[in-house]
């Protein structure tokens, strides 16, 4: 079941996306810690879209069996060349960045999948099940 699409076009959309994910996760019945984790993971990955692809979309879905939330981050940006390397803590192509975006987001959810093709784009899927 589709709940909401959030376009990432400008920097302020990072804030918009994390606020919406927080609201939806609260409505779905996640507790305050899980709401915070989901919103924070969203903020990290929405920033990656804005930074590396320029534009993209965040799609928030409710899942059933198991009940939970699925959040997709889609862009048609440059893609990730070396996914295992991008998943290493401290790796970043941005100077001054902590390199915690991808690995950090993964730590905040139950599952994270990365589907990326160089020159085509990236889709990252997060899943967290309701307790």
């Amino acid at each position, binding site marked *: 079941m589709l709940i909401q699409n959030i376009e990432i076009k400008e*920097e*302020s959309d*990072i*804030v918009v996306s*994390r*606020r919406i994910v*927080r609201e939806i996760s609260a409505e779905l019945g996640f507790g*305050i*810690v899980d*709401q*915070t*984790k989901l*919103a*924070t993971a969203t*903020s*990290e990955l929405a*920033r990656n879209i804005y930074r590396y692809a320029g534009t993209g979309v965040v799609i928030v879905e409710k899942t059933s069996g198991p009940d939970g939330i699925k959040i997709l981050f889609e862009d048609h940006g440059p893609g990730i060349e070396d996914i295992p390397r991008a998943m290493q*803590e401290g790796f970043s192509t941005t100077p001054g960045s*902590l390199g*915690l*975006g991808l*690995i*950090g987001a993964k*730590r*905040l959810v139950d599952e994270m999948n990365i589907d990326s093709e160089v020159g085509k784009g990236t889709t990252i899927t997060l899943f967290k099940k309701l307790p």
Partner: protein
Amino acid sequence: MNRIPILKLQNILLVSIQIDPSDVTIQALQEDILKEISRTGAKGILIDISALDIVDSFMARTLRDCGVMAALLGATAVITGIQPSVAITLVDLGLDLSGINTTCDIDSGFEFLQANGKDQLYPYSE
């Protein structure tokens, strides 16, 4: 862009972040704080984030850097009021925030800065 106000009380700068700040807003705050320290000669800077329900890696890094930069200008920074759910998330995220002074509320943050101003010659010494 929203600008977050900076108040001065005695020789301490007070900041209360009451919006969910975008990256440019938090970066502008960092710059404004450093300018204010330099302009006023403030010895302490208190940043209250009790109203923040999301602190991601960018925001945390900017706040941490702000403390380090303030120390270079001779001021001690303290972050107050981190919500429990934010603390849990920051640790799960894998952020190393050692080196940041924190207290649970504004009162204790203010006391920390005043004690620090009296006792410590070098604001950032451990």
